[in-house]
């Protein structure tokens, strides 16, 4: 059923890392931003205000994690639309590769790179980030992978609707980035007006943020089964829709 999956996944990872912007843009830059912001905020501001200190301790890692997830999704949207425009998807499809194998390979490649970025961030953070609490690294990484996996399915939906590869990045960003404003990362959901609160509950990122924040703070997974369920539902809906509207050429 999944003949060629591992080979194709490994190939896609290698090909991605060969891109000039591949490794630097998506792996190193979130780590760098995280380190710089962490140092700056950690040393300059943490002592002055409890709110900022709270943001640095929980918000910043979660924000960085969300940026990793979103950059993975944007990169997926771009790659898929370039592959479609260049006839690469069509060529792969004319082999015994099953269509779902081709798409699954891309998801796995992105998840692998997400995990690597996450690991680098933690390593870098250990050294520079002035947080002395114990960090649930494994749990947080799993939470990030679940979140990324779910948001990637939105990426496939976006990849289905972008007309050409040139518009992939801007359209993807225009859809995904506004979600950050509403996902409870900067403004707590409780303090939003009712209409926006409802809107925020419709944003898949909200559940990702809630899950990541909770796990980072050391809360139990059992307290966040609702978030995981929501992310699974997002995945199921988006995958089902993509299966209907996805264009191979």
């Amino acid at each position, binding site marked *: 059923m999944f*003949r*060629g999956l591992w*080979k*194709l996944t490994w*190939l*896609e990872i*290698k*090909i991605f890392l*060969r*891109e000039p912007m591949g490794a630097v843009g998506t792996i190193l830059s979130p780590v760098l931003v995280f380190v710089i912001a962490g140092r700056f905020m950690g040393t300059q501001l943490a002592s002055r205000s409890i709110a900022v200190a709270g943001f640095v301790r929980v918000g910043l890692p979660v924000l960085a994690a969300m940026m990793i997830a979103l950059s993975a999704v944007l990169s997926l949207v771009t790659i898929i639309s370039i*592959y479609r425009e*260049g*006839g*690469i998807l*069509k*060529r792969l*499809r*004319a*082999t*015994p*590769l099953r269509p779902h194998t081709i798409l699954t390979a891309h998801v796995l490649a992105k998840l692998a790179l997400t995990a690597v970025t996450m690991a680098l961030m933690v390593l870098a953070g250990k050294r520079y980030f002035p947080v002395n609490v114990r960090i649930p690294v494994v749990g947080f990484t799993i939470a990030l992978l679940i979140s990324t996996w779910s948001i990637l399915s939105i990426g496939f939906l976006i990849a289905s609707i972008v007309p050409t590869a040139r518009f992939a990045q801007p359209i993807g960003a225009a859809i995904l980035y506004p979600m950050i404003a509403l996902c409870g990362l900067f403004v707590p959901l409780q303090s939003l007006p009712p209409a926006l609160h409802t809107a925020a509950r419709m944003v898949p990122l909200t559940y990702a943020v809630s899950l990541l924040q909770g796990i980072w703070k050391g809360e139990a997974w059992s307290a966040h089964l609702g978030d995981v369920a929501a992310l699974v539902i997002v995945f199921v809906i988006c995958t089902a829709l993509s299966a209907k509207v996805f264009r191979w050429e």
Partner: protein
Amino acid sequence: MGVSGTPRPVIQVSGIRKTYGATVAVSEVSFEVGEGEIFGLIGPNGAGKTTTMECVEGVRRPDRGVISILGLDPFRDVYRLQNRIGVQLQQAQLQKRIKVWEAVDLWASLYSKAVDGNRLLEQLGLANKRDAWFMTLSGGQKQRLFIALALINDPEVVFLDELTTGLDPQSRQAIWGLVRGIRERGKTVFMTTHLMEEAERLCDRVAIIEHGKIIDIGSPDELVRRHCPVRTVVLATGNALAEEHLLTIPYVEAVARQDGRFTIQGRGDDLVTEVIHCLSENRIRVTEFRTVLPSLEDVFLKLTGHSIRD
């Protein structure tokens, strides 16, 4: 022998029709491809060549009609079929930064049987490009790689869609040699082209397609004889009585004269022999002699009323 006088047919297409919205891409297309032959679908861009080919490959499903390839229904049995056919798609690309050997290796892993990829690359003159990224290959090298990928599973039928479009004459010649090599290995080749010269040089039989309909099918020679039977001989002579003699030649229909140069037109394969016979019998000294034979290009012009490049 099949209905059309070809060996055992490996592809049978009957009455297929495919529409995209209001556009009819192909309609009532029927033909057979015999085992071991190079069969060409020729026609201008947009005539329905690729659509027809993709229906046979199982990539597209026709709205109507029946296709049988190697005894299989291409759409229903597409995964079984894919193990037995090799496909080169028109204007296909691979990942920009995939290496040549990686592509061959991936493809080889996908089929239930595969030939030695390194030997294949060697045969196609790509051995020294094993580690090159796809994006760094020339047009001819890319097409040779696609041929390699189409041959990796030792297929029984090979599909080549506009294989040499955009290549320079030298690369084109080299690719033609490779295609003949595929046939010599006993494989059936189904190709499309809008280059009449390519069809004439490569194909055992061709089907001319325009506006989604097949106009005629036959070997290039047959088609020329059927639709453009007029042969032309051009000769130059100082003999004042030449015109008189030339007009008496059997099969000759017209003799045009411009100064000392005569253009003789007539029907049938014997025309040239008869002209030579007349010249020697009447001891007419000629300083120039050439024959002009019609080509598929002329057949196309005759059948459609326009040149294929229009």
